């Protein structure tokens, strides 16, 4: 059971990391348009979008 003293703080840290990642992803507009990027990647075009 002692392992929980390591695992629970670890899970808290992990949750914090995920939280920050989600925060950044929403802020960067990654959830704004869920359809277009799928097309963008197969177009024969090198210009960055």
């Amino acid at each position, binding site marked *: *059971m002692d392992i*929980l*003293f390591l695992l*629970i*703080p670890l*899970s*808290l840290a992990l*949750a914090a990391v*995920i*939280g920050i990642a*989600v*925060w950044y992803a*929403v*802020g960067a*507009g990654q*959830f*704004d*348009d*869920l*359809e*277009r990027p*799928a*097309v*963008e990647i*197969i*177009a*024969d*075009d090198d*210009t960055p*979008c």
Partner: protein
Amino acid sequence: MDAIVRQVAPPAGATCYHCGLPVTDAAAPAHAAPEGVRRFCCVGCEAVSLFIHGAGLDDYYRLRSEKAPRPDAAASSRDTVALYDEPAILARFATRRADGTMEADLIVEGMTCAACAWLVEHAIERVPGVAGAHVNFATRRARVRWREDDARASAIFACVMDCGCKAWPFEAGRLALVEEAERRSMLRRFLVAALGMMQVMMYAAPAYLAGEGEITADVASLMRWAGLLLTVPVIAYSAAPFFRNAWQDLRARRLGVDVPVCLGLAAAFTASVFSTLRGSGAVYFDSVTMFVFFVTGARYLERAGLERAGRSLQRLAALVPSAARRMHAGGEEVVSAAQLRPGDRVLVRAGESVPADGLLASTHATVSEALLSGESAPLERRCGERVLGGSLNCGDAFIVRVTHAGADTVLSTLRRMMELAAAARAPWVEAAQKASGVFVVVILAVSALAALAWLAVDPSRALWVAISVLIVTCPCALSLATPAAMSAATGALARRNVVVTKVRAIEALAGATDFVFDKTGTLTLGRPRLVETVALGHSTSGRALAMAAALGADSPHPLDQAIRDAAHGLHWPVASLARRTAGRGIEALVAGRRCRLGSVEFCRDLNGIEPPAIDTRHAHSIAWLADEQGWIAALHIADALRPGAGEAMESLRALGISLHLLSGDDARVAARAAERLGIANMQGGATPAGKQAYVRGLQARGARVAMVGDGINDAPVLAQADVSVAMGGGADLAQVRADAVLASDSLEDLVRAVRIARKARAVVRENLAWALAYNLAVIPLAVAGQVTPLAAAIAMSASSLLVVANALRIR
């Protein structure tokens, strides 16, 4: 795609390379391409496809998952594009950035799949002087930056049109930023609550599952602290809007639904914190986070559904300057209609709408006031007669001397009437708010009573019981019941081309007892169509029709247009030396004979023979065809009923709805339409105010009225009705005020909408009944102190899932 293949009959089953519609005409444009022949159904599709090919964006055809919509050749809208370069108008939608470039948001309409967004973006980027473009397919908006010295705004709009889409400036660019920030922050709050909920449940589950003494006290305490740590952001960040709303409600001395939610959340959280600090007692962190997760999720879904539904209507928020051609000594200039002053002389070309009220300065004009009065037949106006702003020029170009502009026009008066009617509806909304206030008072009273009772019995449990009652009476099921069903119904309606602009429209549509229809443009197509050709001489009706079409081949008059549409596919003779006499008809030489097409007097003047008597009952207007020897044919033209209108009326009656027809059109014409559709209640020659009074009369007798209309003249009555539906092709103004819009213009979709709305109402009732039954079962248990945290958590999730699953049945 260089060599052009012409006049080769297309193989059976050929479809347009661009829009996918069948191609049957041998004269249809076709181009040789590496993979074979590319055929097009019309020059519009050909032009768009050539533009795409010329810009090197052929990839579009490989990437797309949907066929493109057929571009409509709206030549006049290209003219108004030049207005966007006017400094005064440009300043309203574009902003100058720090680096000197201009930036603007555009609403792009007509994109059917993500590949269209790709196409439009790359096409805009190829316009010289454009510094950058980004097209968002989800919001149908484009953000464009350009250098003012090298590019003009009009070139960007024209480029989007070249791609077969339509573009409008999005005036509220700043509003869009606020909207975007709001959507993102809602999503963040929801995701934070989701993360917190999942993780806190992990810490709570062992306590439920473990037997007595299986978890040591220090581990249990650690898990409580971990739960507390993760609940803090959920309460402080995700639930912050609820606390803000509740605080605003309390300050305004009213009780909204957020008040008990916040009271329960705050009490449960505070008590759980004390338990954690003390190291004993129950903690409700899992219930708190789960509750926040469900409520934020419901609100995000509700908002996303509404946004999606409203997107197709967002062009109504766009700035569409109506253009006017002002005449001056040197010629004409295009100005915005707002700049017109009384006394200005304005040129109105064929097919354009009149920008302001005025008197006709040309000798003759043919205008349609269908949008203003509902009168479907084109009207003849002579020099010095009044022409209303908003009416459409169906004949040749004419000049108008402006008498009233801007706010003084008849159009603006109608607009004000409509606003008054809309304002009068507000008390209904207030009543709904009051009812929810009563519900909240009951919840608060029950939990206070429970707490008082327990103070007498066992003071140590009083707080816990009060909290569990608060949480249990405002469970996710109750808060999800309506939004989940509404969101599902909005989506289902949108798939059937019915765009809901206000959520309460669904409820009102389900409860409507009376449907009131406008005639012109709603039950009918709103434009004349050839009903019958009566051959009077030796000619067959087909030959006569082809001849009439040949005579009116170049005429912009709507009656000639109707004849041409009907004669499509026939072999037309050649008409030469065509000469038009305004307001009377056309004369031309066909096979060496002098023929006339037009009014009865006009034709009689040619042959001097009295016209034969014919049955005119079904015709709105008659175009006569004659030559010097005698009469050839009478072409009956009427405003034809919309296809499927009869069946739609039949289905509505089967649903137990009374039907009414109100028309601004001539009473005789309206009566005939009502008779053919089997509508018993009919009023013809109705003014906008008269229609409004009719609906008010129905409402006074207790009817719940749904109004279906399309024109500006319908706008006041749309606002008066309990729920209003506008036809998608109608005037913009009517659509703005309507609670729902039929984007397909098909009345059968209206019947489906009523069915879906009724289904949604049933689902909402089932959901509320379930939530209520759940509450009634759980409140006594909670009041009795019998609800354990585990039971509460399971019951809450199960009842929420049930409500959502039930809502998903709406399809």
